[in-house]
């Protein structure tokens, strides 16, 4: 019966694993829901700023903010948003697979690269790469990230851009499409792509503002907050993606455990039956000999 006993311990260990994975699946599902809600909550702020900035830059054609001016690219900064923890399927690996060709392209064109990883996995990944300069990083943000935790990292990048050390900032993150799909995305953060909002042409709002203290300063403040809110949105999106990916991965793991248990159960039954048969044969042949 030793074979049967071994199989039994194996079954119980697989069962334990299954318990853990299905618990993780349920936790991820509930966290995903709250992350999605948070994603929705960040939208109005960015939309509002977007419409105001879009108008301001139109109303003040003589004032061109550095964030809006394209210049010759000699050095590119990447903000790489990843998850802090693993066990979320191929989420981070897919993102790196998208990120590496970007680095390669910069390399071929002889451009310098600076990276700011947000999230533990990205930080570890960037540390392993050679020839990549890490400017700043933010890790262990948890499930409810606060903008305040990101400001330092973003400021390092923005300062680089303002001083002319970095000529382009790109944002790398997983966009949450739906529960099954997370799209690794690389976007240009700065210079800001021309913001054009057709809705603004409607005469719904009057745009002849009184500015306090003055228009340039207001635009400065708004643009900085706009960029920060974009990065924050990317982080929130990435967290929703992480939870969705983890949920799917853990579901697959639980299903695999289930089929593994079925197989093991079958071979356990066979082994037990074989043992009984042998015993019977022994007894019968023993009786026949007597």
């Amino acid at each position, binding site marked *: 019966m030793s074979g049967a006993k071994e199989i039994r311990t194996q079954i119980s260990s697989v069962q334990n694993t299954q318990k853990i994975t299905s618990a993780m699946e349920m936790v991820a599902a509930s966290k995903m829901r709250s992350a999605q809600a948070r994603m929705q909550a960040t939208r109005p702020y960015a939309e*509002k700023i977007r419409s105001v900035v879009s108008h301001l830059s139109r109303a003040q054609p003589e004032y061109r903010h550095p964030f809006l001016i394209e210049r010759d690219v000699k050095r590119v900064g990447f903000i790489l948003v990843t998850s802090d923890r693993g066990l979320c399927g191929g989420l981070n690996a897919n993102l790196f697979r998208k990120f590496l060709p970007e680095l390669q392209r910069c390399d071929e064109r002889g451009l310098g690269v600076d990276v700011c990883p947000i999230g533990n996995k990205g930080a570890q990944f960037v540390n392993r790469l050679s020839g990549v300069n890490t400017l700043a990083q933010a890790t262990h943000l948890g499930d409810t990230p606060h903008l305040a935790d990101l400001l330092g990292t973003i400021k390092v990048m923005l300062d680089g851009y303002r001083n002319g050390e970095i000529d382009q900032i790109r944002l790398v993150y997983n966009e949450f499409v739906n529960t099954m799909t997370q799209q690794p995305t690389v976007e240009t953060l700065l210079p800001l792509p021309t913001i054009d909002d057709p809705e603004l042409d409607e005469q719904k709002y009057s745009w002849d503002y009184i500015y*306090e203290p003055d228009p340039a300063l207001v635009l400065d403040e708004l643009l900085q*907050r706009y960029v920060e809110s974009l990065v924050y949105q990317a982080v929130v999106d990435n967290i929703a993606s992480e939870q969705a990916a983890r949920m799917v991965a853990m579901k697959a793991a639980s299903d695999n455990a289930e089929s593994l248990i079925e197989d093991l159960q079958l071979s356990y039954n066979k082994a037990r039956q074989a043992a009984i048969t042998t015993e019977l044969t022994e007894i019968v042949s023993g009786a026949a000999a007597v």
Partner: protein
Amino acid sequence: MANTMHLDIVSAEEALFSDEVEFVVARATEGELGVTPRHAPLMAKLQPGDVRVRMPGGEEQFFYVSGGMLEIQPHVVTILADTALRARDIDEAAAEEAKRRAEEALRDRTAEVDYARVQTELAAAAAQLRALQSLRRKRGN
């Protein structure tokens, strides 16, 4: 038309308030601003402080904003609130902190290699200490 305007208070992390109001008072950089419906369009930078809101029933509500922007349209007022205290030196400190984390992570990579060496050194030191203690005990006896 009722003598009210719509007020939205939004931050980067969430929407804090959205309702019809009669009167809003906020602290702009140039001083306190009281806003009633049909105010001229205005865009102002806010100072950290409270925002006072009077609802149609006369009920008052208070919000604390740590800075932000105030946008006024005749019938819509939007406050883009900051989620954290913003000042040049605080931002600077946060930036320094982020840089330090990156440097530390880089140092950690080498530290991992040195881990074994440190451990053996520690073991050697502990052995020396134990030897010293037993020597002392012998002398004491």
